[in-house]
């Protein structure tokens, strides 16, 4: 097997996306959902990781979902809206129609991660993304994910840049005492 520097394991992707989403200022729970969906997205279509990076770009404003069923949203930002839409469908049934969401592939991956038995059907024509709660559908088999996945360096760098916002800058005091161990182990 060749050693491609672009190849990333699915766990690496999930772990970095979690940090990047937190670094982007998303609430922890949303960051966790996006991180759980990231391997699904990456394994299905690594090129769609571009959408994920764009979806993580701050700021992330609160989202108000309309009361009506179907939920109709124009240009929703999936990082905040996606988990809430799925919550509504899973709790109350119904459907959602999203016109030009910023990250449709992420939305689909979130739906698969939230409902692995396939209860949320998704359909897109490139402009509209439809999600429908279908609890009575026969569930598909669980997705078989296999890494590694090629991730373009620029995407990885963008994720690392966001993740770096969760790191605390180095200081001598931190280095000396933060880990609870000394700097030499020659005993």
């Amino acid at each position, binding site marked *: *097997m*060749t*050693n491609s*520097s672009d*190849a*990333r*394991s*699915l*766990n*690496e992707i999930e*772990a970095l996306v979690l940090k990047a989403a*937190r670094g982007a200022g998303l*609430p*922890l*729970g*949303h960051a*966790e*959902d996006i991180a*759980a969906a990231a391997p699904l997205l990456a394994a299905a279509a690594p090129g769609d990781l571009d959408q994920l990076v764009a979806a993580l770009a701050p700021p992330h404003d*609160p*989202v*108000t*979902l309309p009361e009506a069923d179907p939920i109709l949203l124009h240009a929703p930002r999936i990082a*905040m809206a996606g*988990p*809430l839409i*799925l*919550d*509504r469908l*899973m*709790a*109350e049934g119904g459907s959602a129609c999203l016109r030009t969401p910023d990250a449709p592939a992420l939305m689909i991956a979130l739906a698969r991660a*939230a409902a692995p038995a396939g209860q949320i059907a998704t359909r897109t024509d490139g402009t509209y993304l439809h999600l429908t709660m279908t609890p009575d559908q026969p569930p598909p088999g669980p997705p078989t*994910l*296999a*890494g*590694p996945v090629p991730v373009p360096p620029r995407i990885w760098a963008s994720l690392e840049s966001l993740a*770096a*916002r*969760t*790191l*605390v*800058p*180095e*200081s001598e*005091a*931190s*280095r000396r005492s*933060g*880990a*609870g*161990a*000394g*700097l*030499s*182990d*020659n*005993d």
Partner: protein
Amino acid sequence: MLDLPIPPQTSLRPPSEVMRLRRMGAAFPTRLSFLPTLLRHMAAERVRIDRPVWNIDARGFGHALYTLRLAGHAYGLVAVSSDLPPEARTDRVIATAWDTAHVLTDGIPDAAELARIVAAAPRQEAARFTARDLILSRANKSVRLFDHVTARLAAGGQPDPGLVRATGYLMRTTAVYGNGKFGIADRSRIADRPVLSGPFMAEMLTVWLIRHFTHDLAEHVGGARLDPRLKRHLGIGNATGLGMAPFLVAHPLLLDAWMQVRETALARVRAVEALEADRIDRLHTLVARAAAHLAEWQVDDPTAAARLDMLRREWPEVAAHLSPEALARPRPLDRLMSGATRWSIDTQELLAALLIEPFGDLVDGLTECMASPFAPRLDPAMSCEALAALIAQDWDWALALDFAQRRHSARFWYVSEEKAEPRLGDRFTEDGAERESPLDIARQVQALARDLAGQRGPLSRFLALHPNHRAAARRVQTLARHPYAEIRDNMIGAECLPIDMLRCKLAFFGAAKFDPKSDRWTRIALAQGAPLGPDPDSAQDWWLAAMDP
């Protein structure tokens, strides 16, 4: 389908008792721990370890390859030994060089693969690996003991048994990476394989093979064979810091599985109505062995030393309670465990581990339940009232904390820019708390409870208005189905000892001889006293093994 009767069991010890850090931090290894479980599997197959490559110079530097077949799959361990200057030797994450570097491979590497790994392994996190690399690890010498052992062998003698006993290992690993880190294989690659599907089995196989390497290396450098009695008492050490602690928080379902298995095993043992003579003999043997272990175990940390002193004082009382009269009564082990509250938490946990040991036929099958393929899920259809009720039921310990008091929010967990090393800071004297890692679970749930008060309707509606509570809501729901999923202590409080979290996880690995260097760093010994070869009998009986006199 073959229906097997489920053994009777008493009630499990409740999470309110078991999931407190003080008790988790008193954990001992059991036969259900991962390394003993691995060794039983290897012994059952009489796994043979070969060493097709030994390219080590007279000073002990170079590389080697170990190979074996386990449950139908071939594996290799590449070991690379480098000349490390003393000023570069640190067990911290921030290290950039190590005495040895290791990769566990899926299959046997050919010459080209071996060359790739030999070049990459010493660079560790700075290199990239492939999906045929299952585990990445490194180890540093216990310099004093390694030098002593090789010098004695070179002089025609054997090492001092006292030094061997006290340290317990020639090298200690400082990281054992799995599951996709730095490009190595995702866990899914091995998740369906016999044996390696168990939690941390690949990691345990790696450290087991590293142990073999350390023996071979010392004998090579010393130019002579170690006395098998001493060699058996050289396990593999590990130096662990804060990085292991967030794992327990990030994997609540795994933690729940491990704890439920251990507590179920104890509950089955406690339900045994009467003991056969051989079990009684075994218990007496183990009590004596535990006493020898306690006598061997040395620590410098004052808190750990005080606990160990208490254990040593109380252990003879435990032995006295294993009288023929006591063990002849109905459910003798349940009585013993119920009465153990008279002793310290440390003694109670040592006793709990000991009682499980003679009952492999009753409990070993439970190890199949220690892996969890699941992830916590949010149920957005749950009502706010139901969620509030769960918080009231399971989180009283969190609700009682007053985070306005500095001592309850004194610490913050964080990851340093310097090589992403996990650290712990003082919130009121150090910078960085605005970037703290989310280990403040009690505070998160308390905040959720506050905003949830009086709310009605489905959780989905509440979380749409309060997206900041999503993670906490999921944890509350998870705990309701997995009662041992949460550490029931405040991890940002001044009294929190991260070392308690480390010890709990390490005990599940099979570690003993915990040797804390601070409240957040410890060394341990794995496999000290473990068999040297695939002997099925000795693979069953090395719990807290002391050196033969």
